[in-house]
């Protein structure tokens, strides 16, 4: 299907890259069909783009980049809803809030998006842990991580050229590695 989006222009989304979020994400219950967009700028932020509302796009980041010990514990009901019989077939992303002051960006650790990579269904789950806040600052950590990657890349290649800029594009769900951060809550 072809969709027109506010941020990324015209996108062609294959059926196999469509993610269903039944009930939507909190605050936007009316939109249930999404895809993931990589803007191609190598800063690891990807976008959850609604296929029903061109203007609805939310930046996402893998939490392990800035919080290595992050764990998502799901209840039996949540696992059922996500059709996750194997927790290791899931990917976890946090929703980012990026205001006008970009250095103040934050991630919502309390309510991450869990995607079942095999079934291509997702849900924004609310975690029980009180230490996870909905506005966790992470700009410094992400910047440090990007600098580390850049210096490793420079170290490993003989030439000092930057990688060629890439176009933005839909992320194929089949290419997303499992996050391995999802655990089942024990009864």
């Amino acid at each position, binding site marked *: 299907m072809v969709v027109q989006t506010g*941020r990324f222009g015209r996108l062609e989304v294959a059926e196999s890259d469509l993610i269903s979020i039944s009930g939507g*994400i*909190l*605050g*936007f219950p009316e939109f249930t069909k999404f895809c993931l967009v990589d*803007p191609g*700028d*190598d*800063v690891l*932020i990807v*976008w959850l783009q609604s296929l029903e509302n061109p203007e*609805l*796009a*939310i*930046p996402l980041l893998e939490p392990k980049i800035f919080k290595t010990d992050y764990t998502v514990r799901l*209840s*039996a009901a*949540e696992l059922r809803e996500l059709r996750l019989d194997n927790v290791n077939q899931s990917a976890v992303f946090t*929703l*980012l*809030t*990026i*205001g*006008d002051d*970009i*250095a103040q*960006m934050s991630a*919502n650790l*309390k*309510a991450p998006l869990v995607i079942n990579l095999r079934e291509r269904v997702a849900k*924004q789950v*609310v975690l*029980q842990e009180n230490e996870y806040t*909905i*506005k966790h600052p992470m*700009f410094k950590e*992400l*910047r440090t991580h*990007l600098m580390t990657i*850049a210096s490793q890349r420079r170290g490993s290649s003989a030439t000092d050229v930057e990688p060629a800029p890439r176009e*933005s594009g839909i992320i194929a769900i089949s290419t997303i590695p499992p996050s391995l951060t999802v655990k089942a*809550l*024990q*009864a």
Partner: protein
Amino acid sequence: MLVLTRKLGESIAIDDHIKIVVVQIKGKQVRLGIQAPKETKIHREEVYSAIQDQNKQAAKTSVAVNQVSKVLKG
């Protein structure tokens, strides 16, 4: 909605596994104790509205993608 009247120290049971006790009543505040299996998620209702507000802010990101990458790479 089912509405029940309970006194201090009394409780209600939901299914076989969940018990809610009135622990304290002080003016307009009620303290509740909740006994439930570990896998039951219990949240104050406000958590959901806070997340809804945060999602709306996240969706309102007005800065351009290339501006974000410039600042992150700078």
